[in-house]
């Protein structure tokens, strides 16, 4: 369990923050003096995490998540809030050092959190606070949890100092598609690796969909996909367009990117509340459809994904559905059920999502390609996904 080692008084400048960080670790060294025989206390740091929290309640929520991941990612975290934008310039900061016992209990790992509330003009120059407080030579992950303004001066400054951007597209206002298009545009131009909780949440879906085609005799169907249908949850009585459908869009974008499909007709709304698009794979068209469905799940959650393929005279349907704890996979071969398996795969919690967002370098290329196709589905002219991070 994490324990608060030092809750220092309020710092009002960057040098004061630096002094408080040093004091916190000096206090820790003193506290542990005599407990270790020969080892100089070394602070473990694997990254810098900058959280653009905005409101205090967001800052608190993010701090709780970061605290829970500190064991796996002992990092320096800067949580930035903006207060009183029209008031006098200045900042108020609080420094916290955390020690987390290792599973064996034999040692502690350390992490630091700095809460900064920037007031007035200072709030418009957050990068100037961040830069001197970064741990040297460690990567910088920028977590923008709520409604990032991608096309803004502030975003330009913040994104320029980041090695990785973390967002949650499923939390964006409305259907979320404007921001998704902006994200695809920014990522395509900047080559900044993006970890979107909305895409990471689909990991269990992706494994389940991949498992349909693990059997060698079914794999040729991946080259003969004819239709992809994603059902997403809506709130009864509310129009479907109010549901955030970033996750359902990612399903199709990911499949299209992996299976070499191009976008022929971008997404459009249909009168019945569905949305459709036309893709192309090799020499044939693939119909993509997003269909609202009544469900107990939160609005915009994926309810079911179906891939229909036609290889020779065989028609195969791979269907995946999920609930809180598991994912169900059904394979129908010419209308007959060929396989059915339930995977125990609980929905990922935010702590796990953040861990993966920081960790999952192997997924960067996959995410970049999926995001690029998502952009094209939304009629954004996204350049071909290059190697993320090759900036």
């Amino acid at each position, binding site marked *: 369990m994490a324990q608060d080692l030092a809750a220092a008084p309020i710092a009002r400048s960057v040098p004061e923050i630096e002094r408080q960080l040093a004091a916190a670790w000096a206090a820790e060294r003193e506290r542990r003096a005599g407990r270790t025989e020969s080892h100089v206390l070394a602070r473990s740091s694997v990254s810098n995490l900058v959280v653009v929290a905005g409101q205090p309640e967001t800052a608190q929520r993010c701090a709780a998540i970061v605290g829970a991941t500190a064991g796996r990612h002992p990092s320096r975290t800067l949580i930035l809030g903006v207060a009183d934008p029209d008031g006098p310039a200045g900042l108020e900061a609080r420094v916290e050092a955390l020690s987390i016992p290792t599973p064996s209990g034999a040692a502690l790992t350390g992490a630091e959190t700095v809460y900064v509330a920037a007031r007035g003009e200072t709030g418009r120059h957050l990068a100037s606070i961040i830069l001197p407080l970064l741990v040297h030579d460690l990567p910088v992950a920028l977590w923008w949890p709520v409604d990032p303004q991608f096309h803004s001066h502030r975003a330009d400054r913040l994104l320029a100092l980041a090695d990785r951007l973390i967002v949650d597209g499923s939390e964006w206002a409305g259907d979320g598609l404007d921001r998704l298009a902006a994200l695809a545009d920014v990522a395509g131009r900047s080559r900044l690796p993006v970890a979107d909780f909305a895409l990471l949440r689909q990991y269990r879906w992706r494994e389940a969909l991949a*498992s349909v085609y693990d059997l060698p005799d079914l*794999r040729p169907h*991946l080259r003969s996909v004819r239709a992809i249908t994603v059902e997403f949850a809506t709130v009864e009585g509310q129009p479907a367009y109010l549901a955030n459908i970033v996750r359902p869009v990612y399903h199709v974008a990911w499949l299209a990117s992996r299976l070499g499909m191009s976008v022929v007709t971008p997404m459009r709304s249909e009168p019945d509340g569905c949305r459709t698009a036309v893709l192309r794979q090799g020499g044939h068209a693939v119909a993509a459809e997003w269909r609202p469905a009544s469900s107990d799940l939160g609005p915009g959650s994926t309810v079911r994904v179906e891939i229909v393929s036609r290889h020779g005279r065989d028609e195969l349907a791979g269907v995946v559905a999920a609930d809180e704890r598991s994912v169900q996979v059904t394979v129908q071969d010419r209308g007959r059920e060929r396989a059915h398996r339930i995977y125990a795969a609980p929905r990922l919690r935010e702590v796990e999502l953040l861990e993966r967002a920081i960790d999952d370098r192997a997924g960067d290329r996959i995410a970049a390609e999926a995001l690029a196709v998502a952009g094209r589905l939304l009629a954004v002219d996204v350049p071909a996904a290059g190697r993320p991070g090759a900036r």
Partner: protein
Amino acid sequence: MRGRDSGQREPRTMSPRRASGASEPPRTARELREARLVAHRRRRADASANPLRAGLRLDRAPDPCAFVLLGATGDLAHRKVLPAIYELWRTNLLPAEFSVVAVARRPYTDESFAAEVRASLARYSRVQPVDESVWAELARRITYHQLDFGDGPGFERLSAHLDQLDAAHGTAGNRLFYLAVQPSQVTEIVRQIGQTGMDHESRSGGWRRVVIEKPFGRDSESARHLNHEVTRVLRESQVYRIDHYLGKETVRNLLVFRFGNGIFEPVWNRSYVDHVQITVAESIGVETRGSFYEETGAARDILQNHLLQLLSLVAMEPPTSFEADALRDQKVEVLRAMAPPDPDAVRRSIVRGQYGLGWVRGTAVAGYREEPEVDPLSETETYVAGRFIIDDWRWSGVPFYLRAGKRLPERATEIAVQFKEVPLRLFRETSGDPEPNVLTMRIQPDEGILLRFAAKVPGLGLDVRTVNMDFDYGTSFVADSPDAYETLILDALLGDASLFTRADEVEAAWGIVTPMIEGWAAMPAPRFPNYPAGTWGPEEAEQLLAREGRRWRRI
């Protein structure tokens, strides 16, 4: 009988170079066939890769298969193998088309055996509590087959049972035979597998792999005999010799540390390294394994496998790829570059010991000869230390000191690379000379890496002090690591033999250890016990280094 008469065939032992599979073109018709089969499989695997798996935990899933666990009622099966299978199943790393066929002599029904497995999971699974719905799905796939390993018709029935499972569970003719059995039973089981044709792979599908647990023989001759018997039936590429040590996260990290960091390679040679120490220390005694240990001893139990494996990983040249044979080619080259010790070298460079009564961690403990099932006049060594030289371009003249023992003060496995002293002591007038740099890789416990270097003590003078810079694996990644058996079983299912020991490696390691053991047999009886429990071994082990002006690291 379905299969071929394996007894009439030539053994398929490859020459050491051929076993690598990479260095020379195939020469015999058999080698050519195997090369074609491997190339065909590779082409087929590449062409049929599942693009949806890119970026997921596994870039390919294990093929549908039957996991045939021979010795399924034994301790190893219940403590390690079955919990590993459960964990792989729980984390969705096994295919739906999967079945476990438990094979042993005792009478069980499918249900009664599954109940025993469930009880074992409650004790030994590393993730508790056991998930009942997950277990129920796995339990449905477990069948029990009663069989005496000498019973030919019984193996015929097993073969027929596996064919039925192919139809019922879609296991596609793929079989992994896991031999969790006594070493003496291995050749008989492999022979029976061959007699019934269960070893027979074909292009149309159906791979056959056999996992064999260590020990792989008890000396050079028995290891050669075992390899000969096994390869009369199986190709080397079908054999997975498991040494669970190689599946440990930190041993795998050794490879990443050496070949994922550019800064170490330039100094990783005789020009900069003074010597290397590798320690595998245990604080426990022989526990309930007295009779086993009497037949084994520290040289066979630890030196021949764990210590020499660690040495090869530290000393090997960089492989051209991380494919199994590329890696193992380099490891075996290290062992081949070590001269087998002659009797004089055994006397001078190898120390053996046996613990007497003493105190470990504040508790009085019995001496080895007082342990249950141990001969009161036993000459079995519980400690071995040695000085070894690798005669190659990189390491010539650099001693590798290896030690392993029981009832030492603490449990620790580590590799320490000590670098040479600075050529000119600029600070000789200061209060203390800086000690040479040491890079230590701790395998267990508290896995991590420690670098010792000199630093100036703050102040007006020029006092120099040695400090440790300590990277603790556990404090940088507070995360659950998979058990070594999970890693290795998954690798075997995927057909990745990188972390398994190849026949020529086993024989090369015995080529070093057997002359030692034979040398001891020709020497006068040792004066055992020669170290009290709870100390770092016999005095001679200290002298082994002291006569060259060195000392063992304090751990």
